[in-house]
């Protein structure tokens, strides 16, 4: 009997291995092997099509910190984040709080605010390029109508990153809003009732003492996804500026080095820095797990 059971377990383990094998194989060739290649490439000066290859050690990484384009792309990403993170948290939370109280009109607003999330970014970026056009665009026409001057949103280096960030905000608010709505619906009503007994009546008091602290895990999650999407900005840069007006972002710098100049070694080093940034942003989420929040 005992050996029969062992046999059965042994057989099931083999079946399990067989069922997981395709996934394991794909994991090896689509992730493990490419990441190893990336690591090796980053230590060389390999260029696509080159017949020679030189071992550089960490030279590529040192070069990155002196590369004006890459440094600028990091700075641009930071500026972008400084707009998109507070904006993405506060505006989405405001919209979510207002929608949460609506009953009949809730789905109407949900559809409208979520629409930009599903739409093809490169097409909508082309629309934004038109809207921000100095002569023909609606936004400058509207600014002129209220007596403000013409602004070169896309070609003025001091305006281009804020403009890209506003487009980013436009696209992400609906996503964050839904996450906040889910967070709001999980706050037990009894807490508000208990606070009412303790004399917390005003709306803003309820918000400061209950809603905002209860939403901490949700806010962390929103900050993480917003950071990651900030590192991944690409489509809007490609459609609006192609990196002109000093608007390079990290991914665009990698794209240029790797797929336009074919400097594979250097691009691999930049990619690893990009990966480190993504991992750093994801690790904010570990804080959240400690607090035992539950979000899928």
């Amino acid at each position, binding site marked *: 009997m005992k050996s029969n059971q062992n046999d059965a377990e042994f057989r099931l383990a083999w079946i399990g291995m067989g*069922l*997981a094998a395709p996934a394991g194989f794909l994991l090896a060739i*689509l992730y493990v092997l490419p990441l190893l290649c990336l690591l090796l*490439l980053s230590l060389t000066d390999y260029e696509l099509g080159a017949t020679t290859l030189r071992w550089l050690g960490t030279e590529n990484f040192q070069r990155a910190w002196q590369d004006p384009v890459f440094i600028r792309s990091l700075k641009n990403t930071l500026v972008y984040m400084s707009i998109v993170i507070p904006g993405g948290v506060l505006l989405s939370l405001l919209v979510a709080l207002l929608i949460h109280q609506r009953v009949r009109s809730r789905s109407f607003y949900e559809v*409208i605010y*979520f629409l930009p999330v599903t739409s093809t*970014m490169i097409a909508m970026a*082309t629309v934004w390029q038109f809207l921000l056009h100095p002569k023909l665009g609606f936004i400058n026409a509207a600014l002129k109508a209220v007596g403000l001057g013409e602004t070169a949103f896309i070609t003025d280096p001091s305006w281009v990153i804020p403009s890209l960030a506003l487009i980013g905000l436009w696209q992400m608010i609906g996503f964050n809003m839904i996450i906040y709505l889910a967070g709001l619906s999980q706050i037990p009503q009894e807490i508000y009732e208990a606070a009412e007994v303790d004399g917390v009546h005003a709306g803003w008091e309820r918000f400061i003492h209950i809603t905002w602290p209860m939403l901490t895990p949700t806010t962390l999650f929103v900050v993480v996804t917003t950071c990651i999407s900030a590192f991944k900005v*690409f489509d809007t840069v490609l459609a609006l500026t192609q990196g002109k007006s000093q608007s390079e972002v990290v991914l665009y710098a990698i794209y240029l080095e790797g797929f336009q100049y074919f400097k594979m070694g250097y691009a691999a080093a930049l990619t690893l820095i990009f990966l480190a940034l*993504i991992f750093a942003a994801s690790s904010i989420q570990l804080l959240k797990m400690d607090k035992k929040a539950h979000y899928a």
Partner: protein
Amino acid sequence: MKLKTSVVVSHAVLLGGAAIMLMPFVWMFFTAIKAPSEIFEASIWPWPRTWYGFAHFQEVLKSAPMGLFMWNGLVVCTGILIVQVLVAIPAAYALAKLPFKGSESLFMGILVALSVPIQVTALPLYMGLSLAGWLNSYFAQMVPFFLSMFAIFLLRQHFKTFPDEIIHAARIDGMTEWEIMWRLVVPSARPALAAFAVFSVVAHWNDLYWPMIVITTTELAPPPLGMLLFANAESGANYGALMAGATLITMPMVIAFLFARKQFIQGITMTGFR
């Protein structure tokens, strides 16, 4: 009375925000049906004064194979989804219900790979596909996405909640693991599969980065790359045609979203990926 004002204020704020969210869509569509002379007036009112018809759309369809782009997008998204599901279901079942040696390290690997985006593996994968001579194909567009970490993770969570007693009983009745998986366990996770399908299709329909790297011929371009090629070709300020092109490219997803609002919102937000 106090309640009334707060309701009015909240509707006012929400409607104001909604107007901003919709503004690009409104301008896109009305510019697409506007005469070029009116576009150059740069009025602050979006709607056209005179009926210009669909001339801009005809112009787009003449210069860019929009139908073909959509077809390419459909082929690529369907192919990716089928392979993802066929790979993820057995793996998730094995990880959830069939303890085997190495299952923990496989799961750890999957969790790590979950946060590695395509932009990281793009460089070596491109070199590999280039060496093999497989660039410019449907296969090249699909292959990096055949393994969906997220699908495995999500399905494993669902399969874990499936009662072990039922599986034991089925084994005693002589059902094979393959039958148990497909006929008992998978049907119980149908809502999760539907949400994942929406997520996968939306993500890959809208993806530009990877197709842009591996596809250089117009005939194989998916919609986002098609839009880019068309926008680059329309180098002048022919915004009527550009907006007509953008309308055509965004339309399928917008229509699908309006018809399956719940599934879209669920599918996209449950993943945490944009």
